């Protein structure tokens, strides 16, 4: 239920539009790419193996255990094992659904590079289902007293079981892959039978899971339990100098906070690097420009909530500095960060084909967009916030 609340914040209106474009672009790129492939590329099968092993890892075991549970539920051994069984089945259903969806994405690719009958496809989907169930059983036994301590073995089983199955499926044949997956499922469930819960491990595993989910949500909104770390970053002193403004306390605070708070600067850096990679590899001119502008917009919107970072500190209200100066100082930081990021993305957009024309166009549009974002979009956001 708590997660629903966060999903609503993730899919705010602007972001949905951005996502729409991003997925549209990806789907378009995929469909353009498929006809260019000829049969029997040496790497196509390996790519399929890699994809299927990776998607087997999606969807974890959700036990929803909380830290006080070991204390309050300790006597309830019977009902806990029943509860865990239900939780495991629930996670399996969700995981299998996700896995089948992701597997479906790869099917067009598989159909162009491989010769597959309808029977083969159904066999592959059944194999996917069984492999995911085996994977979840691994996750379940990993939080048991009897098997929990063997962490390396568990990690190996997470990866090597699917690897064997998918290697056999794609290199030998779907029917053999199915056979191997069934054998593995039977082997795992008979060997790991005694799965009484290890509370310490179970709670920690659940906390890890929630933390990774929260960290994802934290990209879009503030999650109370995820707080960024602080790093000194002596090497970035020059950058702080560029971002701050003589004798302006707010500029000083924002510049130091931005560079040292791993959450904010980490997010901006990650988005910039992903943006650079994407625009470097997209050769379609108009798409390249749209994506470049999209990433500039994304970074700008992700940085804007940083304006409110220090609202909870009394001292920011006590300093004899007006609100207007604070807005100006933040605008300055925003402007400089966006410009730096914009330049990096534009430079990367030159691509493998060294297309200077595209770079020039992106530069002009990028500068215009940065100006509009800091000048008008930020102002309207601030008005909403300060209301």
């Amino acid at each position, binding site marked *: 239920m708590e997660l629903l609340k966060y999903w609503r914040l993730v899919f705010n209106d602007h972001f949905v539009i951005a996502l729409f474009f991003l997925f549209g672009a990806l789907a378009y790129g995929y469909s353009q790419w498929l006809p260019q492939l000829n049969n029997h590329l040496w790497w196509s099968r390996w790519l399929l193996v890699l994809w299927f092993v990776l998607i087997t890892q999606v969807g974890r075991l959700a036990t929803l255990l909380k830290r006080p549970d070991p204390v309050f539920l300790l006597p309830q051994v019977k009902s806990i094992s029943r509860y865990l069984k239900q939780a495991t089945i629930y996670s399996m259903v969700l995981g299998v659904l996700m896995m089948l969806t992701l597997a479906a994405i790869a099917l067009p690719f598989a159909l162009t590079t491989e010769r597959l009958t309808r029977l083969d496809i159904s066999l592959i989907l059944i194999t996917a289902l069984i492999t995911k169930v085996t994977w979840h059983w691994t996750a379940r036994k990993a939080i048991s007293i009897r098997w929990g301590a063997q962490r390396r073995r568990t990690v190996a089983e997470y990866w090597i079981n699917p690897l064997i199955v998918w290697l056999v499926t794609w290199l030998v044949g779907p029917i053999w892959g199915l056979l191997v997956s069934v054998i593995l499922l039977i082997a795992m469930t008979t060997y790991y039978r005694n799965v009484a819960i290890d509370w310490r491990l179970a709670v920690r595993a659940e906390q890890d899971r929630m933390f990774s989910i929260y960290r994802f949500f934290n990209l879009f909104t503030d999650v109370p339990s995820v707080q960024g770390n602080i790093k000194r970053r002596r090497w970035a002193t020059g950058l702080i100098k560029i971002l701050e403004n003589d004798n302006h306390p707010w500029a000083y605070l924002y510049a130091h906070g931005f560079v040292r708070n791993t959450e904010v600067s980490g997010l901006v850096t990650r988005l910039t690097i992903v943006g650079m990679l994407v625009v470097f590899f997209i050769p379609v001119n108009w798409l390249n420009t749209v994506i470049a502008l999209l990433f500039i917009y994304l970074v700008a919107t992700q940085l804007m909530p940083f304006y409110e970072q220090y609202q909870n500190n009394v001292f920011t209200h006590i300093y*004899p500095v007006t609100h207007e100066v604070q807005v100006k100082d933040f605008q300055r930081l925003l402007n400089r960060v966006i410009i730096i990021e914009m330049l990096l993305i534009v430079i990367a957009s030159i691509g493998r084909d060294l297309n200077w024309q595209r770079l020039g166009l992106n530069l002009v549009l990028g500068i215009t967009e940065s100006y509009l974002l800091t000048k008008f979009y930020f102002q309207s956001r601030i008005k909403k916030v300060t209301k």
Partner: protein
Amino acid sequence: MALEIKNLIGGYSRIPVLKGISFQVKPGELVGLIGLNGAGKSTTINHVIGLLRPFSGEITLNGINIQQDPVDYKKQIAYVPETPILYDELTLREHIELTIKAYSLNTEEAWIRARKLLKTFRLDNKLDWFPANFSKGMKQKVMICCALMTNAKLLIVDEPFYGLDPLAVHDLLELIEERKKAGTAVLMSTHVLDTAQRYCDRFVLLANGKVRARGTLDELRQKADKPDESLDDIYLSLARDDQNE
């Protein structure tokens, strides 16, 4: 008159916590703000530092009204909060630099003052530490250093005695004494009554959002009709009276 509060009615939402409070703090005077939990001490302080907007009534500092001229008003105050609040991203040195920028202080003079204060509180070798590495008492000392290095005409100290070691309490009181001599007005809220009795010039006793009594220790003794009692006893008897009402 440095700080002048006239008929202040205020609080957090629509319901007033303070129901018409008036008192003054003169330059060079230490006034103790005393009251039970929930009496309105922190609310009063939040109004004085400008966090809350009064429903009615007036707060002026050397003739400058907080509503009419917030920047000039805020330039005159320094605040030490009850729970230390520091910026996680800034080192101790940078907190001091930020304070210098925020109050537009002369950098060299301010650093001379700051170094002296840091030395007093044994923080001078920790200039490059981040708040995460400080204990609660150390953070409190950082707050005191940042407040005392300004040229504030009014110093507001909210419950300073918890979390500080005895030596630091002593040093703080001595520093306040020094600032008083230089003409700074000091408003201090506290529960530690025997210390307050020894150091405060005057007291304002708050109860239920009203000023229950105010004046010097002798004046309070007269009011409570207990000529030789300590502040502690006077306070307790006044507080009990209120409860019986």
